[in-house]
């Protein structure tokens, strides 16, 4: 196993792997059937939403039950902007900025509360958001919702719509993932981790828990807004139902199931968000909610780090079999926290 880790941590191997992924992302939309492309695009949309939730919850430890609200606001801003005929780049910027500003204002108040109170405040966002969207029908189209078609493939590309939409999602989601990865691996990420670990320690080190909670929440709202833009690219329609309470809970479940405090986990979470309902509907549509609850509870019991921790769990099993001491068998109950970097990760950062 050590040899395999060494091989994987060589710089050129990583570059080749990255290149392969990029090539796959460029080529795959061209050869996959339309349905697969649409599903992949939707996974990308919700992976971004889960990523935003991860910034505030997975990395900073503040339970947010309102992420879907910011996705909804982003979608509404996009739909409204497109209907008004604004420039699409401006629409994208506004779709991120407006939810960001709302998130900033909410967190300025909510972050004053300690501990779980942020969860208790944010649960209200989707529950207020739905009637609010119905009320502001001048901008939102009321219960009817808004549709905006702006993501048809341009003539010169010769692409089908589904291919073009998937490319947009890949490009924007790729940038968001890259930026977020850099954020959580750098100075801010370490500050988030300390705020999550122990606020008293954080403030004794000169890191204001309040300021970093507000920052994390604002970034999460920004990312949620981008996800809302992408939602409009793919779905092209939004209604108050987009930000319903049930969706908000599913988003949170997806984050935990994918893996809290993990970039790859966000991607898996997005896949879970899109694929799980399709799967449970195929079994029995009236059982969807029951199965979702059961899956979430089972994951929390047997795999608290989420799906992304499967390989690590497997590695640990193997090392236990060879008689090495278990790393932290008891600590696994307290996850989701970002895991201490495993050996291979540490090496990677050194090179």
């Amino acid at each position, binding site marked *: 196993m050590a040899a395999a880790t060494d091989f994987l941590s060589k710089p050129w191997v990583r570059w080749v792997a990255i290149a392969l992924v990029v090539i796959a992302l460029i080529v795959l939309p061209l050869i996959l059937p339309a349905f697969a492309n649409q599903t992949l695009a939707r996974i990308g949309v919700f992976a971004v939403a889960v990523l935003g939730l991860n910034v505030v919850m997975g990395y900073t430890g503040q339970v947010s039950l309102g992420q879907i609200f910011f996705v909804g606001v982003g979608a509404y801003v996009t739909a409204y902007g497109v209907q008004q005929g604004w420039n699409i780049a401006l629409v994208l910027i506004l779709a991120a900025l407006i939810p960001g500003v709302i998130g900033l204002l909410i967190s300025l108040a909510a972050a004053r509360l300690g*501990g779980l*109170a942020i969860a208790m405040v944010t649960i*209200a966002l989707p529950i207020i958001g739905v009637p*609010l969207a119905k009320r502001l029908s001048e901008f939102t189209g009321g219960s009817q919702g808004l549709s905006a078609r702006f993501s048809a493939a341009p003539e010169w590309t010769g692409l089908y719509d589904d291919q073009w939409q998937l490319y947009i999602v890949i490009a924007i989601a790729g940038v968001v993932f890259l930026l977020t990865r850099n954020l959580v691996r750098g100075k801010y990420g370490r500050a988030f981790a300390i705020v999550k670990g122990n606020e008293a320690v954080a403030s004794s080190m000169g890191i204001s828990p309040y300021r970093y909670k507000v920052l994390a929440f604002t970034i999460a709202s920004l990312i949620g807004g981008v996800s809302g833009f992408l939602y409009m690219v793919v779905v092209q329609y939004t209604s108050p139902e987009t930000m319903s309470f049930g969706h908000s809970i599913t988003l949170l479940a997806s984050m935990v199931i994918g893996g809290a405090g993990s970039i790859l986990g966000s991607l898996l979470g997005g896949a879970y968000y899109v694929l799980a309902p399709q799967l449970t509907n195929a079994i029995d549509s009236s059982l969807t*909610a029951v199965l979702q*609850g059961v899956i*979430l509870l089972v994951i929390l019991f047997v795999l608290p780090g989420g799906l992304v921790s499967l390989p690590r769990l497997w590695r640990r099993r193997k090392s236990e079999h060879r008689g090495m001491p278990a790393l932290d068998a008891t600590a696994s109950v307290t996850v*989701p926290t970002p895991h201490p970097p495993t050996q291979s990760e540490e090496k990677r950062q050194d090179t």
Partner: protein
Amino acid sequence: MGTFIQLVIDGLSAGSIYAALALAIVLVNQATGLINFAQGGMAVLAAYFAYTFLQWGVPLILAILLSVLVSFVLGAVIERFLMRRFERGDPDTAVVVTIGLLTLITGLCGWIWSFNNLQFPSLFPVQTVNILGAVVSIRSIGTTLVIVGIMLLLQLLFLGTKLGLALRAVAVNPQSASFSGLPVGRLLMVGWGLAAGLGAVAGALIAPSLTLTPGMMDSALVYALAAVILGGLSSPIGVVIAAWMIGVLENLAAVYVPFIGYDLKIAVPFILIFIVLIVRPQGLFGRKEVVRV
């Protein structure tokens, strides 16, 4: 003036139900330090139990009492077999567990009893009485009185009995409580059971006016959480007062503030929270928590 009194009394009755749910949340929080987001879901389940007992021909008052009993047992079982594992760990994880529980219970209710609205009979007659020129429904008065009565009983339990003393000891310091020979695990189960029973009463009282659906308590839960924040987690009396305040204010705002109206009145407690938070972050009646490193 008549409308005003009517609104205030209706608000008090709605506020009483939020207060019951909020007290259940505080009860669990005091005992185990976590927020049970499934408290509303468990109350809905209890209301469905009462509904089923009614179908079997049990008289209403007995059906409700039975559902409270079943909820007590269910709450204790959930504590023992689901929450126990997560109580000592990260509170965030425990919160996610309760959210999973909420999804599961809502799903189960929908699966067993369908997502359609079911009619649930009221414990009180639909007549109205005249108080100072205001037309007030007996249901509103009855609901308020029942909840106030239960609160007095709970107060008696916590302050006047050995069991209450033990429960308070566990809430203050589980470790010392267990050193002095208290069965902490069993007391936690009792705490959860009491909370679930309290929720069951709230569910049975709110079901007639909202009609029974799996998501019936979602907004009540939000109100209850708002009351918990406003009152402060450490102050049961503060929570009850906050819940009444929310009930009355949202009713008044719905009628007298045109932009809010009935559909947006749920925003009222949160506007209130934002104002309070800026002035008193620990809640209206709560104590500032001091954490030792």
